[in-house]
């Protein structure tokens, strides 16, 4: 059963809303379903690493809230909500090509294609940026850079990695802009792509999403 990027985006937005409307047990059930779905879509090392990193980040968020005086229950709920929202986006990115997301944003949400392209390009740059960052760190280490010392010292010395990366990113975006212009970007972008038509599965998912979205209101007022 294949659903379009439009339906997936709507579902993700709905999940983002549900985490604030639904009670904690329901949010926890969503989390379990999301994790199962994510691991069904992709169960490689990268996905496991992403889940691991997200878990660590959530733990840190909870800890910070506790340090700043929030009660344990509030901290845990906040962490859970953040985890569920982020996992929904991870599912979206694992299941859908970035181009499809961009196309859905332009076609269905009427986002100007330049902005959609900017979004997808930014996402596409992330792995490149991470590779460059690792290479720069290695290159500077080989000529004496070390991140030993206190936080301020580390922060200051990390500029040796950040500065070449920024310059590189600027140069890359310049090259990309030029090459896109030369290819005629903006003339009829996304106009010549096959339109994403909704099928039965999409309508079914959208109906379920609507039903679940209305449930809290129905249970409260009717």
């Amino acid at each position, binding site marked *: 059963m294949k659903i379009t990027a439009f339906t997936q985006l709507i579902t993700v937005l709905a999940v983002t809303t549900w985490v604030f409307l639904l009670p904690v047990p329901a949010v926890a059930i969503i989390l379990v379903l999301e994790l199962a779905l994510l691991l069904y879509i992709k169960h490689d*090392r990268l996905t496991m690493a992403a889940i691991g990193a997200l878990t660590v980040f959530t733990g840190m968020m909870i800890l910070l809230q506790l340090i700043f005086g929030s009660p344990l229950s509030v901290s845990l709920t906040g962490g859970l909500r953040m985890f569920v929202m982020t996992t929904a986006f991870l599912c979206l990115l694992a299941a859908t090509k970035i181009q499809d997301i961009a196309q859905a944003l332009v076609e269905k949400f009427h986002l100007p294609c330049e902005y959609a392209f900017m979004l997808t390009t930014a996402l596409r740059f992330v792995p490149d940026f991470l590779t*460059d960052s690792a*290479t*720069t760190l*290695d*290159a*500077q*280490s*080989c*000529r*004496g*850079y*070390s991140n030993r010392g206190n936080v301020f010292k580390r922060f200051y010395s990390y500029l*040796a990695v950040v*500065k*070449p*990366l920024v*310059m*590189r990113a600027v*140069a890359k975006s310049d090259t990309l802009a030029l090459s896109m212009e030369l290819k005629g970007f903006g003339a009829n972008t996304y106009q010549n792509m096959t339109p994403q038509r909704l099928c039965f599965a999409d309508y079914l998912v959208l109906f379920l999403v609507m039903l679940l979205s209305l449930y809290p209101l129905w249970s409260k007022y009717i």
Partner: protein
Amino acid sequence: MIEAKAVNFAYHRGEPVINDITCKIEDGEFVALLGHNGSGKTTLSRLFMALVHPRSGDIFVDGDNIEKLEPADLAHQVGYVFQNPDLQILEDTVFAEVAYGPRCKKLSETAIKEQVQAALQAMGLENLADAYPRTLSFGQKRRLGVAAALALNPRTLILDEITNGQDEQEKDDMMDYLQKLNKEKRITIILITHDMNIARQYAKRAIVLNDGNLVFDGTTQDLYNGVRDLKEWGLTQPIMAILSAAFIISAPTVEDFCEKLCLKEGGER
């Protein structure tokens, strides 16, 4: 001196990249590290620089095990020049760029000035000391990378695909500077390259890796004898090696070959 003893390595519990490699590179050698893409050349050099550490086995630099060391600790012993010079340019002048390493080592300003000037001179960049590094030509940027590594006075230089993306003149210039460093300052050069001509012309020793295994360790003369089949290792004999073998003329360059061929045939140039 760099020595690897029964070194094994794999990235992230994946397939082994380096399999039980043992080799020793003595001071003052000019070594070409060869192999097809993915053969493990760069990984082996990264092991030498402590950028990664072996799963098993040991690496010694100047007799010391580098197991617990970081690249910054080794920078004054081994210099590593990466493929892409743009990824490390940090400062606004060539001088400051080269001085980054000595400054990290907290040397005195006098010592920094001396070492930077010596490094710039060694790579023919002394006239560009005040230039903005990003405006240099690609070849000059590569030389800047070498100068930045040299500024810490290392006894070994590891150069990853140093001649890539350069025109013939820039390649020759770079290799001449490296040869000079090797001959005059006895700096050990470990050259990772796909350029068989350069390896044959400049390196005395070749180490060939194939799928993480060391398959050849000997003289470049022996490797490039013109008749050895190197295809199974993803390499080819340089044209000059094949010609030299066919005409039984030992000549490192085209010019030498032509000259010797003319003499052999009794002709004049």
